[in-house]
């Protein structure tokens, strides 16, 4: 029977058990990597670095994790912090706060446009909301905690993101 995250973390912390860590890695890394790619477009191949740093930071901070959330949520929170730091460095988005005007960032509805590309064009806050909620299945409460925003803001961002995607994609879908 699969061991719980908690049992595996206990083994890693108590004895440095590499097999236990690899089990944790294999359980959670696909989601972390997918999230990193979707939030950053894998700019400069950095999704791999984000995941690497997430595990390193997590391993430095096991003692701080109080199991009030799932391990997946906690790891994703570390990943999001890393992504925010990178965004600030890249100066693409000054913060992950709510963006209300996306009219200037609309992609052209050409043949290359698809859902992934449209998501990639969303402002950072919208993109986080739709990736975390609609793709990865986090609740608004979890997203609020992860992104340090209100639950209402998370819902608003998701709603606006969906509206934007619909607006961008409908012309294409209505002709196919």
């Amino acid at each position, binding site marked *: 029977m699969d061991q719980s995250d908690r049992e595996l973390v206990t083994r890693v912390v108590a004895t440095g058990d590499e097999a236990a860590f690899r089990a944790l890695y294999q359980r959670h890394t696909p989601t972390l*990597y997918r999230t990193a790619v979707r939030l950053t477009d894998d700019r400069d191949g950095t999704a791999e670095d984000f995941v690497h740093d997430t595990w390193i930071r997590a*391993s430095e901070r096991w003692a701080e994790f109080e199991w009030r959330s799932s391990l997946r949520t906690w790891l994703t929170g570390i990943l999001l912090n890393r992504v925010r730091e990178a965004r600030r460095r890249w100066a693409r988005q000054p913060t992950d706060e709510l963006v209300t005007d996306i009219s200037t960032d609309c992609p052209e509805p050409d043949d290359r446009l698809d859902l992934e590309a449209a998501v990639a064009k969303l402002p950072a806050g919208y993109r986080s909301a739709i990736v975390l909620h609609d793709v990865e299945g986090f609740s608004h409460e979890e997203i609020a905690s992860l992104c340090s925003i209100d639950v209402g803001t998370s819902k608003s961002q998701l709603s606006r993101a969906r509206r934007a995607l619909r607006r961008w994609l409908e012309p294409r879908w209505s002709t196919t």
Partner: protein
Amino acid sequence: MPPARLEARITDALRARGVLRPSPRRIPLWHTAALLAASAGAFFLGRLTAPSPATDAVSTPRWMLLLYEDDQFEGPAPGREADYVAEYRRWAQTLGRQGALVDGAELVPGGGWLDSAGAELVESEREVPGAGRITGYFVITAPNADSAAAVAASSPHLLHRGRIAIKPLGAS
């Protein structure tokens, strides 16, 4: 999917930091089971005889976890004591399988303490004034205080609002 090289990259980094070590030698399951069966009633029904620590664990620092209960402690409802026994036992057995458990037992009612005024045994339910009763202990191995704290944090005792003192043990 993440690149295949990523797993090796991360585990290499964690080994270099001393976070990961080769997996400890496992105690055969039959041995663990035999020892546990021989431990009359196991934890909360007597002394928990842990399997001998793995070779790697012998040189690892040892820590005493002292389990305290005070008025905040949420003890078992009448008739549910066995659930608590099973819960603590599962936790201890997990540590035992990892080679991280050296010893552990419930401290049952009775006994008392001596003060500096004399050698007379003073019976008291509150062994440590202001801190509640010490109702059990575990001796574990962990590479450092943070690791010992993480092990303690995984204990069901905290879920029941007990408290745990973590003290390093000197060489015996």
